[in-house]
């Protein structure tokens, strides 16, 4: 954790290298490669995505509406703290930020696909689900606070530089997700982190091995298989490390909503309120992402209970697919930013 924080701090002192920094409207500050800068208007096709089918459409649009209302209330309460001070608006800010975090994370984004893929593709402990969601949300809050605190308060940087740095953190986050995906895949291939042997088919092969080498698998249910030789319950370090690091990698990308609240409170001399608000948002985000990860842990268990992954090989294959999907997601997002297809830090 300390090491990662130091790395983060070191990163913030590097010059901005992002290919496409975002402007104040979350747009690349140079036009996308596909657009003709001279005549952007002529090039524009009048093509739009089809409407979502209705229960989903109205659900997503009411989600946006709830967020808009919470945001309006939050801004009102922030002003109240600035103008009058007092505990009541401060408590309101904490409550609203918390609710905002919950609803905000229900919408697209916030690493739910990465977290979901991880837990859907392998057996895990419920605690792993909570740990990954919690570390993602915590790192996300802390990265926004450090980013704004360090750059604006200490280095007196402007908001465009802060957004550019946030874009860098986002790229770092995707690169880390990509790397972790590969590491997970290696863990599966080498048999370090996944897929213990509690089924008949894998028996023969495994009895030949030294058992202790395989007990790291940590897929969380080593205890309900009835082998003659009970494996020694060892601390499952690789799995835990993977879980916490993946959460951290997802969270490295700060939420621009939190950055904007922090900048507003900083500009109004109530930075501490912004910090509290950001942390409360983080708790809300953690709850939503936990629901997703626990849901996936449960779904995975349900699927394996009905025999969807009967063999060791199948389990390994699934875990490998999940790992590679995570790698692919990280790589695609990096490519999206570097090619200008998706602006950095727009979430």
């Amino acid at each position, binding site marked *: 954790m300390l090491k990662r924080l130091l790395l983060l701090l070191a990163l913030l002192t590097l010059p901005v290298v992002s290919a496409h920094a975002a*402007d*104040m*409207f*979350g*747009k690349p500050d140079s*036009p996308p490669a596909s*657009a003709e*800068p001279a*005549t*952007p*208007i*002529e090039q*524009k096709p009048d093509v*739009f*995505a*089809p*409407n*979502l089918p209705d229960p*989903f*459409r109205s*659900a*997503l*649009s009411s989600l*946006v509406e709830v967020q*808009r209302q919470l945001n309006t209330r939050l*801004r009102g309460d*922030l*002003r109240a703290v600035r103008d009058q001070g007092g505990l009541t608006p401060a408590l309101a800010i904490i409550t609203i930020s918390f609710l905002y975090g919950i609803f905000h*994370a229900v*919408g*697209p*984004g916030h690493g739910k*696909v990465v977290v979901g893929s991880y837990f859907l593709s392998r057996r895990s402990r419920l605690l792993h689900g909570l740990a990954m969601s919690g570390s993602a949300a915590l790192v996300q809050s802390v990265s926004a606070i450090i980013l704004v605190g360090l750059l*604006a*308060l200490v280095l*007196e940087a*402007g*908001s*465009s530089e802060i957004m550019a740095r946030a874009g860098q953190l986002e790229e770092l986050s995707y690169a880390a997700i990509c790397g972790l995906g590969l590491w997970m895949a290696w863990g599966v291939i080498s048999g370090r982190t996944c897929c213990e042997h509690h089924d008949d088919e894998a028996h023969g092969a495994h009895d030949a091995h030294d058992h202790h080498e395989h007990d790291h698998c940590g897929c969380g249910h080593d205890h309900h298989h009835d082998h003659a030789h009970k494996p020694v319950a060892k601390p499952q370090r690789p799995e835990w490390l993977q879980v916490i690091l993946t959460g951290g990698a997802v969270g490295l990308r700060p*939420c621009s909503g939190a950055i*904007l*609240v922090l*900048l*507003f409170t*900083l*500009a*109004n*001399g109530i930075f501490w309120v912004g910090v509290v608000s950001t942390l409360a948002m983080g708790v809300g985000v953690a709850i939503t992402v936990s629901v997703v990860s626990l849901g996936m842990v449960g779904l995975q268990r349900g699927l394996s209970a009905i025999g969807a992954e009967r063999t060791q090989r199948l389990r390994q294959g699934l875990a490998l697919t999940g790992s590679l999907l995570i790698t*692919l*997601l990280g790589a*695609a*997002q990096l*490519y*999206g930013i570097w*090619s200008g*297809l*998706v*602006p950095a830090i*727009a*979430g």
Partner: protein
Amino acid sequence: MKRLLTAAVLILLPGLAQAHPHVWVDSIVTARLENGEVSALVEDWLFDEDFSATVLGDIRKAKGIAGPSKAPLNPGEIAKLKQNAFSNLKNYDYFTHVWLGGEVIKIKPDVEDFSARIEGDQLRYFFTVRLAHPASLKGKPLTVGVWDDSYYVDVGPVKGKGAAIQGTGSEACHARVVEDKVHSLYYGSIFPQIAEFTC
């Protein structure tokens, strides 16, 4: 290869999805009628407090605890504001989408009369978008939607007065705000509110 990668990214887009929006704008669009045709649109954007504080903080170079002052903007500051937090929107048609009877109407790449002022905690922009060719509203409604395709910015008409029409002969015309159910935003979930002008 590049096309292949792009396709891959687009396929993975649900995974790339981001939680939006982050900037809110209350807008008023006023169609300007000249010789019976609409030649330009006057836009009025009122930004939320967070965005306003952030942008002003950059312009006034007042950082940290002090925060930007609320003094009126001088011409130099307005020019800087335009450069920092407006001009890049040229590449996005200033979020302005125009149709005449369902046909796309182009706008000129440069706006006119850009100005800005501070109102309380909020920043307000005014600018005029010229249509490439004046549009005759005879029998055809002119519709103007102001939105950000990526939905990072949520632009919505001011309640009750988001659309207006001015100029000689505008007495016989009507301006109102309607819901556009064709051009949905944010994964097809949001129907933007657009201005509709009829004569």
